[in-house]
């Protein structure tokens, strides 16, 4: 691994070095390093590119890191990963993809992540996307995330697009069964001419299932963002969608939250707001000595935290 690889791993997976626990590092379309533990197995798929990650029932407090690095132009990487989180397990999964595209051809990673969070299991999934490189080549990331949460299970998805991704279409679908809960937090920053689209669909299938989707985004320059967060209530359940966007310069944002109830005891709420940085906030920070640019930076950093 060279310095660029290390920098990207640190940015997308918070890894300073080889992580503790299970991991699988994929670089330019091939696995380069892997570790399994007594409780977590990682197997290469036989029918298509990708891995199966199997977490034994009752595994508590372990983590799996599965970062992906692309450092060459002209690559189109497609990968299918399947996660099986055993009953009663409590686990952290850190995914994330960083593209360093040095050339003028596009570099693209499409990841399909399919999760089953079994009865009473808890999973926290963190996914960070990042791009860099000075060439004309686009950095493209199209993740698809499919989550099934069984009875009494809990899933937390933290989806972050930090910077440098030119084009992204993210698609997240989830089904929650009896008394299952899911929290989705999405953070997105686009600038230049970047384009980002995010679709999230959570189906509350079981009784007392609940979900909360919190999306915060900043669109700068001439970038464009589209959000379609949807919650469907099919039982007695609760759902809350909260989309909050800061728009700047010539950017464009569309936010189209949808809530649909197919049951009289479904309680669903959505809120969506788009606006520029409040003038009062800028002035307050400038009145304690920050320049306008520093004030803006501070406000955006907090907002996307």
């Amino acid at each position, binding site marked *: 691994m060279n310095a660029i690889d290390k920098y990207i791993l640190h940015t997308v997976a918070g890894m300073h070095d080889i992580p503790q626990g299970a991991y699988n590092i994929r670089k330019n379309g091939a696995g380069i390093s892997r570790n399994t533990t007594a409780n977590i197995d990682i197997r290469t798929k036989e029918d298509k590119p990708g891995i199966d990650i199997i977490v034994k029932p009752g595994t508590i407090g372990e983590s799996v890191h599965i970062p992906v690095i692309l450092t060459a132009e002209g690559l189109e990487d497609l990968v299918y990963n399947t996660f099986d989180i055993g009953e009663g397990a409590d686990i952290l999964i850190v995914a994330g993809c960083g593209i360093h595209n040095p050339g003028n051809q596009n570099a693209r990673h499409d990841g399909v992540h399919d999760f089953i969070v079994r009865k009473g299991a808890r999973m926290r999934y963190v996914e960070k996307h990042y791009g860099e490189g000075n060439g004309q080549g686009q950095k493209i990331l199209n993740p698809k995330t499919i989550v099934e949460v069984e009875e009494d299970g809990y899933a937390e998805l933290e989806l972050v697009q930090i910077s440098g991704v030119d084009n992204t279409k993210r698609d997240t679908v989830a089904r929650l069964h009896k008394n299952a809960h899911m929290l989705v937090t999405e953070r997105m920053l686009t600038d230049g001419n970047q384009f980002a689209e995010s679709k999230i669909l959570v189906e509350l299938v079981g009784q007392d299932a609940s979900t909360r989707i919190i999306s915060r985004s900043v669109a700068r320059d001439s970038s464009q963002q589209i959000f379609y967060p949807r919650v469907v209530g099919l039982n007695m359940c609760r759902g809350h969608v909260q989309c909050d966007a800061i728009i700047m310069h010539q950017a464009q944002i569309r936010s189209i939250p949808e809530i649909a109830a197919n049951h009289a005891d479904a309680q669903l709420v959505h809120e969506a707001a788009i606006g520029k940085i409040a003038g009062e906030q800028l002035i307050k*920070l*400038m*009145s*304690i*000595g920050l320049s306008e640019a520093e004030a803006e930076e501070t*406000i955006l950093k907090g907002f996307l935290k």
Partner: protein
Amino acid sequence: MLEISDLSLTLDGDKGPVEVLRDINFVLRDHLLYVFTGPNGGGKSSLAKVIMGIYKPTSGKIILNGEDITSLGVTERARLGVGYAFQQPPRFKGLTVGELLQLALGKELSVQECNYLYDVGLCPQDYLEREVDASLSGGELKRIEIATLLARDLNVAIYDEPEAGIDLWSFSRLTETFQKLHDRCETTLILISHQERILSLADEIILVADGTVKEKGSKDVIWPLIMGDAICTCPTNCIERAEDSVECYR
């Protein structure tokens, strides 16, 4: 020393230009505590915002320690030691109380500096990590706003209605804090207030009404004016009409 001469301010309102301030002249000296008081809408906050550089005056001059700062922006004035605690402070998603204090200080927080929170009646352990967002109560937000100003070493510090929304216990703590500041610092302190206890701290009270300075003097001179009707700017017949209209709606 802060000198204001022939200052006026006209803002663009919804229905055309509004004259908010006119013919303002005064000199505020170092180490003294001034209270701006007067009726709602009289122009106190607008005057404070002109001093901070938030509003650009339509005419007139603002001189800080001999330097003409009239054309300087908010950041430049802040760096020259002018500070303003907002009447209605803004909230920030994701920014913690500790981070805000640190920005105000311009350096890492030390244990000692957390005392600014004690000075406004807040326990640092409970608040440093909290976000300055909608989860704070109005009074908590107001006290944090005051603490961010206390944290700074200023030439001119303006507190806009620091007592508003603050409970009695914290209020007495706060008046002690202002008294201490006044005793120990060279800062020119300006408190915008309607509270008699704050007026009692003043070396000089400046009565702002109808967009201008109506009167200056000690509490003994100003208090009777406030208690009397000398500053009511509403013509009597307008009040009579108001009473009629109540009749109509019965």
